[in-house]
């Protein structure tokens, strides 16, 4: 079988090589290093005693688990983490669903602008929303509280609201996840063939009956899957618990990991405890994802492919459309306008005082916080670092997932099935945990503290999203377009570059923009992985916040948000043009 073929008589011939896939193997290797090996390091770390790095020689022990799981703070941490993630989904899901339904199925005014309206909040850092709401709902100086106290004549000097509480945490968290949840739910709604509902209507069922007997049962698995997905997302949320938790006295899994990673003067390295908590988070994530996969499989059974451009009949809202629009407007106000306005206000103040008339005399307006940013360190270093990492992450991720998408769709084999599985694994791993695992893998190596490591962390995090995007884009690309190129004499690589990638440009660009903006607004990777040599804007904002310099961090966040918005708007324009072409 493996003997040399009689190729010498026919020079232009090649050996059979259908089972050799060097490209697929190298992609798999990259994925394994990015996704699986770090987890392996986390497992190792969780069994090492204090003072030892994962690969150091020395004994193994279960004491990190014992220490982590028997501590007095263990039960509250688990309870609060589950409460935070669970309540977040419980409140956000109905709201996001109503918004999605309004956009997809009703004649609400401005429904076509929802994509822009929702993309703006998606690109603002959670930390900015959190800081904004601290300034609005802080128990003492929160603007809303000050006004309410004046209005109702309360002179306790505190309350009535307190953002530093579980309620406050959940409130900001819900605001934060609604936009992305809305995006997912519109997809679920669009997947369903409206003909199924119209058939029920035609057979005499009332709108309400149709909703109950056809729409709801068909959508339930899809909506539940979205809920589970955001539950796992809730486990990994770090910025918000970090902004509000310590003052509120609430510790979650993510903040526990963060704080126990911080080097303290008296203790040396002790990565066992964060690793043990990481294992716990991983278990929760995997469990959630297993349920998610089951549900998604169920929905795909229901999915009916609809004809191109086929839109369901829109429900006329009548007078209710203003109520609907008002609800959306209220959300945008709470999520974007109010927090951004108060940050903007704070960024021009020398010392913070609430925007209330009685303090007008104390308002010392200044540009100092901005001029300070102009010095070399911020724009020349931290800001550039953030930009470099975001651009690198977006480019690397999208190149990698484009290739994966092509392999999986066009060269299906056992190997590409495996690639697909590994590429989707990050969905099951809460982001904080995958970043922690990368930290444990690279701490003590030369790569630690470089921008490259930060880039890799983002690539690992956005891998699943990108794979999904490029997979469906690839499915829409008719195979014969590539085959025509091959039949014309172009080889695989030429075809991939000249035809496949070129035609995928719109999808590639929107994915690129998405990753760029998300990497630029993300705080958790920077806070967990950055060190002296690789400081990002996020680290500086957090430091200023911790040091009580709210106005400074407000100014930096204003710059970051503005930058992100410009990118989103400009990027959408470019993508629009490339699609129109």
């Amino acid at each position, binding site marked *: 079988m493996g003997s040399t073929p*009689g190729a010498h008589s026919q020079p*232009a011939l*090649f050996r059979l*090589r259908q089972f050799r896939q060097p490209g697929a193997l190298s992609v798999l290797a990259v994925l394994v290093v990015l996704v699986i090996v770090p987890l392996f390091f986390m497992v190792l770390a969780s069994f090492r005693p204090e003072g030892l790095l994962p690969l150091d020689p020395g004994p193994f022990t279960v004491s990190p688990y014992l220490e982590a799981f028997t501590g007095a703070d263990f039960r509250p941490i688990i309870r609060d983490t589950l409460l935070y993630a669970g309540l977040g989904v419980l409140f956000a899901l109905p709201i996001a669903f109503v918004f999605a339904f309004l956009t997809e199925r009703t004649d609400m005014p401005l429904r076509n602008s929802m994509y822009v309206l929702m993309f703006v909040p998606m690109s603002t850092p959670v930390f900015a929303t959190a800081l904004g709401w601290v300034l609005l709902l802080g128990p003492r100086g929160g603007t809303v509280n000050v006004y309410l106290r004046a209005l109702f004549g309360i002179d306790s000097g505190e309350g009535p609201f307190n953002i530093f509480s579980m309620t406050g945490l959940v409130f900001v968290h819900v605001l934060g996840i609604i936009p992305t949840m809305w995006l997912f739910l519109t997809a679920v709604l669009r997947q369903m063939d409206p003909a199924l509902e119209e058939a029920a209507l035609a057979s005499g069922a009332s709108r309400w009956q149709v909703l109950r007997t056809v729409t709801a049962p068909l959508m339930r698995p899809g909506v539940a899957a979205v809920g589970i997905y955001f539950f796992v997302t809730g486990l990994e949320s770090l910025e918000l618990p970090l902004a509000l938790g310590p003052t509120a006295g609430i510790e979650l899994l993510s903040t526990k990991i963060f704080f126990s990673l911080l080097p303290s003067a008296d203790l040396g390295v002790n990565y066992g405890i964060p690793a043990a908590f990481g294992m716990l988070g991983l278990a929760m994530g995997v469990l959630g994802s297993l349920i998610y996969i089951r549900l998604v499989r169920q929905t795909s059974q229901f999915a009916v492919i609809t004809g191109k451009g086929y839109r369901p009949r829109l429900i006329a809202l009548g007078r209710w459309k203003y109520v609907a629009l008002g609800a959306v407007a209220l959300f945008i106000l709470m999520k974007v306008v109010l927090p951004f306005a108060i940050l903007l206000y704070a960024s021009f103040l020398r010392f913070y005082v609430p925007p209330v008339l009685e303090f007008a005399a104390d308002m010392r307006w200044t540009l100092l916080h901005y001029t300070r940013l102009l010095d070399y360190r911020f724009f020349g270093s931290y800001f550039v670092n953030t930009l470099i990492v975001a651009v690198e992450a977006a480019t690397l991720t999208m190149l990698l997932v484009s290739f994966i998408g092509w392999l999986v769709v066009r060269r299906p084999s056992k190997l590409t099935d495996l690639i697909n599985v590994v590429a989707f694994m990050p969905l099951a791993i809460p982001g904080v945990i995958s970043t922690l695992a990368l930290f444990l893998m690279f701490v003590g190596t030369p790569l630690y503290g470089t921008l490259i490591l930060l880039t890799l962390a983002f690539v690992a995090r956005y891998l699943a999203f990108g794979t999904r995007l490029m997979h469906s884009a690839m499915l829409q690309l008719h195979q014969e377009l590539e085959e025509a190129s091959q039949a014309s*004499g172009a080889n695989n690589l030429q075809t991939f570059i000249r035809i496949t990638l*070129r035609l995928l440009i719109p999808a590639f660009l929107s994915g690129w923009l998405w990753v760029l903006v998300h990497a630029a607004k993300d705080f958790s990777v920077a806070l967990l992985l950055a060190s002296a040599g690789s400081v990002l804007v996020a680290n500086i904002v957090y430091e200023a916040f911790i040091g009580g310099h709210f106005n400074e961090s407000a100014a930096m966040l204003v710059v970051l948000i503005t930058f992100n918005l410009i990118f989103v708007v400009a990027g959408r324009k470019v993508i629009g043009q490339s699609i129109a072409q």
Partner: protein
Amino acid sequence: MIEIRGLGKDFQRAGESVVHALRTVDVTVERGEFFVLLGPSGSGKTTLLRCVAGLAVPDRGEIVLDGVTVYSGDKRILVPPERRGLGMVFQSYAIWPHMTILENVALPLTQKRPRLGKAEIRERVARALALVGLEGMEGRPTPLLSGGQQQRVALARSLATEPVVLLMDEPLSNLDARLREEVRKEIRSLAARLDITTLYVTHDQVEAMELADRIAVMHEGDILQQGSPEELYCRPEDPRVAQFFGSTNWIDGRMRDKDAVETAVGCLAVPDSDTRAIGDAVVVAVRPEDVELIPDAPGAVPEENYFRGRVVSNVFLGDHRVYTIEVGGFPLLARTLASVLVGGDISVRIPRERVCVFRAGSRNEIPSAAGS
């Protein structure tokens, strides 16, 4: 020119049973021949074409193009598609939407080694476009072209490098009926003029008859019969081949003699055959246009295969009519230009040499794995 020997390909999807897309296919296409692969949906035509192009890898067998082995399962030889030097027209046309007509047609030319100059490429693109009647349209963007124009661009692209072998996969199926007829003629005359060896896939037997020098009829991964259109039409070796070309009267019967079959219609004289024994159950195929209607003339001399019946119904189809004649209780279809009275008695004659006899039950049989 194209030699395909013992070619086989199976598809196996996870959790599903194996699909034998090609079982054991042997086809030889001579230089300059227009060869059509004809068969119902799912019979493996596209798979065979893609194997020849190198876009699909067969599991066994051998393909030789112009004396060069491009695939051999035994010798483990596989030449990638870009090295086979073929022209190919795809069912979806596969016009690259991000390129102009010029760029589409020029791409195969830019792959030629030694490299062609810019001017040379432009000239050859212009020549290819002129060939398909699109002269001067080089700069047009492609997404707005009509179906017929896209089809022509695809044809021009496949002809630009002046390949000796051209592969086409149902290139006319996306066109409307009139345009299809027009383009069909063009393709035929183009292929003859350029002396191109063409392998053409279709499931439309009219198209196949009009275009082909020879036709191979495929069914579930096997070739049932290959030959000239006339051979296939008049001397089908398999009832499914007969079934494919136009409508047929299928009459069950039993061999009464070496050259006679007892049927419901009566005793039919058939061409002599040694392969069937007396008493064998058979099925007889008679084409409606081979059923001659003879107006009842008293005192006419009864000839061979001469039967009496009654005209039951009549369908007018413009240039001809189809009558149903009840003969011995059997509804026999007859196609004719003449008009006869419905309800009246009539005589029919079936020329012996036009009758085909097949083994009973062979119509619904699954073809055996071994090709003949």
